[in-house]
C-alpha cells in the first residue's frame, strides 16, 4: 500500500484558478495526489493526516529562474555588503554602512585565521552606498600587511586588494598603464581592479580562482540551504561551463536523498561553436535527473548597464559613456538559434541594453521562419530596458521574458541619476507592460548579484521602490497576485516545467513553500517581510530551523 499523507494548512494558495484556495493537500510518491477539503481528499483511501502546517500558509514552491549556484560558495568568504543578508546557516549578517565597518569585520575574521599565509577574501562590497568612497590598498593594509586580502564587489566586476596581494602579483610598482588599474598619487596601483583582465592575475592570490563560477560540492549544498530558507524548490544555475567534472559533482550532490532543491543548470554558449554547444546540451539532456535538469543553453549578448558594457540604442548612456560591448555576434546567435530550434533545445539569452534586446529579436525572427517551432519559449534574461514595442515583438515571436525586478531596488537610483537617466529608468524591468502585452513573464534575483528571495523579488516588482525610498515607475507596478504568479508558475513556464511545478494541483510535484504569514493578506509593501518556515520538496519536509 502506498503511503498517502494529507497535510492540513491554515490556507493553501494553489495558483490553480479552478480552486485558488484550499485547506488540505494530499501527497503520495512525492507528488500532489489532490488539493481540496479533507472530505474531498479522504476518498483516496488510507492516509496519515499531518497537522504540522495547521497554522501555516502553503504556496507552490518558489521557482527562481535566474540565479547562480556560486552564491553558496561566496558565503565561505567575509560578507562586506551594505544590506543585511541571510547566510546558508540562517545567520543574518548586518549590512556595513561605512568603510570603517567593512575593515572592522575583516579584522574580526583575520584574527580568527590560523595560517598566516592563507588569503582573506570578502565579497559584495558596493562603494555606491558608501558615498562612492573608494577602498584603497592602504585601507586593507590596516587589516593585514602580511596576508593577501581581496574583496569582490557586489557587481562581480571589480575587486579591491591590499599591498601584499599586489606584491605577490608583481604589481607593487610604478609604470603600469592599464585602464582597469587606477594608480595612486605615488604612481603605484590603488589596489582597485576593474574587469577580468586585471582581476584574474591578482585574484588567484586572494582566494578567487578562475573556476569561481563553478560551484563546488560544499557550495552547492550551502546553496540548497538558502533555497529552503527562501521557500525555493526549483532553481536555475544560469549559466555554468558544465564540463564533465562539474556535472558529476552536481549529479552527486543533487542525488543526495536529502538535497532540497531541483537545480536547472544552463550550459553557457562561450568558447565553443553553436553546433558543439547544441550537441553538448543534447548529451547533457540524456544525463538529466529529476533533481538536475540538464539540457538547456544560455547565450550572452551584451554586458551590464551599471558597468556601461550593455549595448544601448540611441541616445546611449545618460552620462555620455561610449556604447558597451557585444559578447556574441548576431551571426553566431543566428547559428545557435537555428541549431537549437532544430534539436529542440531551449536557449535563454542575456540582454541588458535595449540594443541587445533588439538584436536578439532581429535574429530570432528569421531563425523561426527557417525552423518553425510552435512552443520554443526562448527567453530573454534581464531584458531590463525593453520598451513597449519590443515587448510586442516578443509576443509576436512567442518569447518569454525574465525581468530583473531586484535591480530596480538596488541600482534604480544610479540608473535614474547616471546610467540611463530619468525616463528610461522609469521603464526599466517593465513588468506591467510585459503582462499587458501577454508576454509570459518571470522575475528574478540573479543571486549572488542580489540576494536570493522570491518574496523580496515579488515585493520589488509590486512596489518599484529604490534603495533611497523613491517609487520609480508607478506605471510599471504589478499587483501582488501577479507577482506571486511570476515567482511560481511564471518562472516554471520559462523553463518548460509548468506541467510539473509552479502550482498545487493533482499530478504535480509536492513542492511547497511553507510560510508563517499569508502573502495575499499582507499589504503589498510588507510582502518582503512574509516569514518563510521552510519547504516541502518532492514530498520531503525541510524546516529552515533544522538545517
Amino acid at each position: 500500500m502506498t503511503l498517502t499523507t494529507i497535510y492540513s494548512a491554515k490556507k493553501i494558495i494553489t495558483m490553480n484558478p479552478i480552486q485558488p484556495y484550499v485547506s488540505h493537500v494530499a501527497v503520495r510518491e512525492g507528488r500532489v495526489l489532490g488539493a481540496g477539503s479533507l472530505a474531498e481528499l479522504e476518498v483516496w483511501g488510507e492516509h496519515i493526516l499531518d497537522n504540522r502546517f495547521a497554522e501555516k500558509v502553503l504556496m507552490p514552491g518558489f521557482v527562481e529562474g535566474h540565479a547562480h549556484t556560486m552564491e553558496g560558495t561566496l558565503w565561505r568568504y567575509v560578507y562586506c555588503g551594505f544590506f543585511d543578508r541571510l547566510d546558508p546557516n540562517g545567520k543574518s549578517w548586518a549590512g556595513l554602512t561605512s568603510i570603517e565597518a567593512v575593515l572592522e569585520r575583516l579584522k574580526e575574521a583575520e584574527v580568527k585565521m590560523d595560517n598566516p599565509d592563507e588569503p582573506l577574501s570578502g565579497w559584495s562590497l558596493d562603494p555606491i552606498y558608501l558615498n562612492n568612497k573608494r577602498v584603497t590598498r592602504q585601507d586593507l593594509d590596516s587589516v593585514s600587511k602580511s596576508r593577501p586580502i581581496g574583496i569582490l564587489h557586489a557587481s562581480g566586476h571589480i575587486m579591491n586588494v591590499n599591498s601584499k596581494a599586489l606584491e605577490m602579483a608583481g604589481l607593487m610598482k610604478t609604470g603600469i598603464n592599464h585602464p582597469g588599474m587606477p594608480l595612486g598619487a605615488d604612481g603605484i596601483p590603488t589596489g582597485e581592479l576593474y574587469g577580468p583582465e586585471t582581476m584574474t592575475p591578482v585574484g588567484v592570490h586572494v582566494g578567487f580562482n578562475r573556476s569561481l563560477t563553478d560551484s563546488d560540492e560544499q557550495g552547492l549544498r550551502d546553496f540548497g540551504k538558502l533555497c529552503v530558507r527562501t521557500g525555493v524548490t526549483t532553481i536555475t544555475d544560469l549559466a555554468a561551463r558544465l564540463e564533465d567534472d562539474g556535472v558529476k559533482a552536481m549529479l552527486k550532490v543533487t542525488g543526495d536523498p536529502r538535497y532540497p532543491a531541483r537545480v536547472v543548470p544552463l550550459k553557457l554558449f562561450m568558447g565553443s561553436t553553436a553546433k558543439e554547444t547544441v550537441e553538448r546540451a543534447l548529451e547533457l539532456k540524456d544525463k538529466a535527473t529529476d533533481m538536475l535538469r540538464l539540457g538547456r543553453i544560455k547565450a550572452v549578448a551584451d554586458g551590464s548597464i551599471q558597468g556601461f558594457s550593455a549595448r544601448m540604442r540611441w541616445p546611449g548612456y545618460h552620462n555620455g559613456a561610449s556604447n558597451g560591448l557585444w559578447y556574441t555576434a548576431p551571426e553566431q546567435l543566428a547559428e545557435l538559434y537555428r541549431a537549437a530550434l532544430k534539436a529542440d533545445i531551449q536557449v535563454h539569452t542575456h540582454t541588458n541594453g535595449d540594443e541587445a534586446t533588439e538584436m536578439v529579436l532581429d535574429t530570432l525572427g528569421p531563425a523561426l521562419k527557417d525552423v518553425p517551432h510552435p512552443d520554443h519559449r526562448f527567453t530573454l534574461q534581464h531584458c531590463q530596458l525593453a520598451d513597449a514595442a519590443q515587448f510586442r515583438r516578443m509576443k509576436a515571436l512567442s518569447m518569454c521574458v525574465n525581468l530583473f525586478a531586484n535591480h530596480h531596488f538596488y541600482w534604480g537610483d544610479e540608473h535614474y541619476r547616471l546610467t540611463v537617466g530619468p525616463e528610461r529608468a522609469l521603464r526599466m524591468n517593465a513588468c506591467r507592460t510585459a503582462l499587458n502585452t501577454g508576454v509570459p513573464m518571470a522575475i528574478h534575483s540573479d543571486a549572488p548579484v542580489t540576494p536570493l528571495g522570491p518574496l523580496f523579488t515579488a515585493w520589488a516588482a509590486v512596489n518599484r521602490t529604490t534603495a533611497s525610498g523613491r517609487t520609480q515607475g508607478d506605471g510599471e507596478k504589478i499587483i501582488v497576485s501577479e507577482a506571486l504568479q511570476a515567482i511560481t508558475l511564471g518562472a516554471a513556464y520559462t523553463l518548460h516545467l509548468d506541467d510539473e511545478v509552479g502550482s498545487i494541483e493533482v499530478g504535480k510535484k509536492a513542492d511547497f513553500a511553507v510560510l508563517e504569514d499569508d502573502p495575499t493578506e499582507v499589504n503589498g509593501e510588507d510582502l518582503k517581510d512574509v516569514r518563510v518556515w521552510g519547504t516541502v520538496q518532492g514530498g520531503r519536509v525541510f524546516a529552515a530551523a533544522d538545517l
Partner: protein
Amino acid sequence: MIPVTVVGGYLGAGKTTLVNHLLRNANGIRLAVLVNEFGELAIDEDLIETQSDDVISIAGGCVCCSFGSDLTAALGDMAIMSPPPDHVLIECSGVAIPSSIVNSLVFLPSFRSDGIVILADAETVVQSAKDKYMGDTVTRQIADADIILLNKVDLVSEVTLHATRTWLIGQNRYARVVESTQSVVPPVIVLDSFVGRVRAGGQHLEASHLDMLTLTPKGFVDADKLAQALADEDTGLVRAKGFVTRHDGTKALIQVVGRRWDVTEVAENKADGLVCLGFKNVISRAMLQKLI
C-alpha cells in the same frame, strides 16, 4: 619575453585562414595559437598531429589552444610551457576589441606585445562598418590596428579596392595597410619572430608588395629617436627589428610595428643591424639611412 601578436577582425575576414597559413609556414618557429573556440575547421586537418579537448598539437612543435572565456589563464599556461613557445598568436573572437587584450598583457610579465593585426574583408568591410549592430565594433577594431590585412582583394574591382583603402586610412591613418588574397602574406608581416630568419621570413615576399632591407648603423645612435622615426607613417615601413649601440655604449633592441615602437636594453653583445620591412615602392635604403 615571449612576443604576442593579436589577430582580430570581424567574422569571416579570414582570421582562421591566416592562422593556418602561418602554421603551415612556421619553418621551425614554435608558434602557440590561442583561439577563442575550436570552430569546425579551426586547423587544417593535415597539420594536426594530435588533438584533445582544448589543445591541438601541430607538426613542427606548434600548438593551438582554445581559451574559452579566460584568456589570462590560458596565457599563464603558455608561460610555463616547456619549452616555451617562440611566439604567441591570439586569434580574437569576431566581436572582441583587440586593444583590451593587448592592455591585459601588462599583468603578464613573461609576454610583450608584438602589435595588433586586423583583417578586413575587401568585399564587405565598408558595409560591415555601417551595420546597425556591429558597425561600431568593426570600426573600433580597425582603429586598434597596427597593421591591417586588406584581404580577399582578388574578389573586388580596382575601383572598389582603391575606395576601400582610402576608407580604411580614413579610419586609422597610422595603420599600415597590406593587401592579401586568401590571407596569404609573408609570415614576417604578422610575427616579428620571423625577422632575421631569412629563409622563413622571406617566404611569400617576392609575390607581395613588400620588401625587406637591412640597415647597418655606423657608430652610435639615439635608439629612442631612431625607433620613433622608423615608426613614422611616411617611412613606408611595416616592421623593423634589430640591434643598435647607443651613445653610452650599451646595446639596445629596437622593435617597430606600424606606429608602435619599443626600445629595450640588452646585455648580450649583438652585432648592430636593423631588418626593415616595408612597401616596395616606398621604402628605400637611402631614405632609411638618413634616419640614422
